[in-house]
């Protein structure tokens, strides 16, 4: 079933990780397998923040294969070597789990070539690159993942998140949401639903040079929107096209450096509750997610079929 949530504060920075954690925890029953956050924080000036993994979480419930820590270390060394070759200067590196890293770095080259080179190392996946975006996903509920990665301390303006009930692909980090909009910095997507023309679209997009890291149908939306923007469309134009070009039932959220958007398929088969005020927009698969931010009585509504909305910070 899956649960999605998002929020955007207009002109205000808050503990965005903590707020999104509470929203996603309220949706735990919709997706107990894994939880993911795409948080848009204060950033590090003009430097990139890169979140990447060199292996999978193999704890109970995971469908990933167990690997020795020495394998992770070897992969990380190869990533570091590639970064040097690419001319990227790592300013700060942080190891969060044995398989997960956060780098702050200077880089001014092409992100597509950069990603291809880094991800040429077996099992290495860039979860996100951005000036503001930090994308974290792992097995467990929102509180578990947030604590593991200290997300409740991250300050920012907006974010989207996902609680996943695995249906058509494995319980692992690579199939968890959000998905990064490779190769664009600061683009992320979460989705609730099923896409029925996944393979046709994947084949078409792979021919154009786009990459897929999982077999999760939701990844298609991120890659699809990235390809649209790559060919000159705005985010909103890409989202509107997706209503007719992507087949299935879906409600998805997409975030960029300065905006948050939502789209709902023409059957309106997947839920979304929306709260909108002058300084805050909050969305969730269920109202109880929004209630964690606003316990007082509020006016909310369901966006209609085929509706696309985008808000700016």
């Amino acid at each position, binding site marked *: 079933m899956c649960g999605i949530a998002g929020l955007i504060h207009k002109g205000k920075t808050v503990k965005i990780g903590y707020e999104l954690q509470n929203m996603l925890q309220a949706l735990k029953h919709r997706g107990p397998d894994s939880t993911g956050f795409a948080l848009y924080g204060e950033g590090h000036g003009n430097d990139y923040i890169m979140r990447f993994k060199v292996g999978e979480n193999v704890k109970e419930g995971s469908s990933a294969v167990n690997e020795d820590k020495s394998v992770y270390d070897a992969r990380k060394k190869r990533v570091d070597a590639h970064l040097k070759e690419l001319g990227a200067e790592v300013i700060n590196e942080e190891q969060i789990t044995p398989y997960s890293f956060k780098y702050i770095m200077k880089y001014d080259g092409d992100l597509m070539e950069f990603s291809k080179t880094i991800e040429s190392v077996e099992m290495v996946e860039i979860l996100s690159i951005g000036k503001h975006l930090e994308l974290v996903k792992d097995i467990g509920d929102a509180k578990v993942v947030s604590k593991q990665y200290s997300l409740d301390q991250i300050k920012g303006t907006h974010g989207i998140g996902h609680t996943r009930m695995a249906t058509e692909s494995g319980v692992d980090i690579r199939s968890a949401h959000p998905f990064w909009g490779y190769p664009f910095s600061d683009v992320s997507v979460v989705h609730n639903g099923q896409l029925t023309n996944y393979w046709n679209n994947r084949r078409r997009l792979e021919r154009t040079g786009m990459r897929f890291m999982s077999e999760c149908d939701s990844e298609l939306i991120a890659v699809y929107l990235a390809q649209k923007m790559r060919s000159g469309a705005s985010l909103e134009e890409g989202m509107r096209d997706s209503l007719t070009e992507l087949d299935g039932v879906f409600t998805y959220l997409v975030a960029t450096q300065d905006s948050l958007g939502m789209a709902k398929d*023409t*059957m*309106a*088969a997947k*839920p979304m*509750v929306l709260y909108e005020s002058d300084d805050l927009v909050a969305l969730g698969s*269920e*109202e*109880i997610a*929004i*209630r964690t931010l606003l*316990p007082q*009585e*509020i*006016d*909310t*509504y*369901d966006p*209609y*079929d*085929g509706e696309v909305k985008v808000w700016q910070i």
Partner: protein
Amino acid sequence: MANIKDSKATSMGLHQEALKGRTQQVFFNPEESENFYYYGAYDVDFNQRTEIDAMDLSCRELNEKMHSLMKEGYGTIVVKNPQGKHSLGVGILNKLNLIFEGSLGYFGVGSIDGPVVRITGRVGWSCAENMMAGKVVIEKNAGSCFGAAIRGGDLICKGSVGARTGIDMKGGTIVIGGDAGAFTGFMMQRGRIIILGDVGENLGDSMYDGTIFVLGSIKSLGSDAIEAELTDLDKKWLKRKLEVAEIGSNIDLSKITKVVAGKKLWNYDALEPTERKGAI
């Protein structure tokens, strides 16, 4: 096997079969042939009023609390701080004044038969699903599948509703003060829907029977849904129903579009809803 004695149901030709397994559970006392009360329905006094704060209660705890209060005879129950929780106020099978001061989540007041419910906030998906009788008034908006499969009663949303309102409904009346989404009245079989705002695509798609009245614009009609003549009888009924719904007192009824089934897909015919209710 359960020993089925003569009862109203058996005299109607029902429940003649030899029961076994889970169906042995007896809900009605066959000795009391005229006593056709539901299991779990209570005699309440509307003058007995009480309040519950739902802030720290789970859905199950709140529903159990309401049933125990009805058992004690309370006929007016006010629920404060429902906080958008799911499945509140479900399965109430007797007369009751029930007031929710706030919003409900999904499946609110489902499978009810008799209570008058007022919700001061909004409701999520599938509000009043399978409602048999009573009146439900929502002051703000409602999610999708509003009044799915209702069989009777008046279900009123003063704001706007999502997609598939009245899907599979078999009776009763749904009144919407604002707009309605796509597939409103999808596969409806009987009953009436009134929409005072605009309505989305595929209105009345694959409807078997029933009537839909729309004051605003219709984006498109669904398969086998057709426009029909609005009669004086319709106008009288609409006037009366909108008074019950507490909305639309000043509208020009002649501007309403009436939509019915073309009956080219399937000719639905079965028991009237009241007969169906007796047979359950």
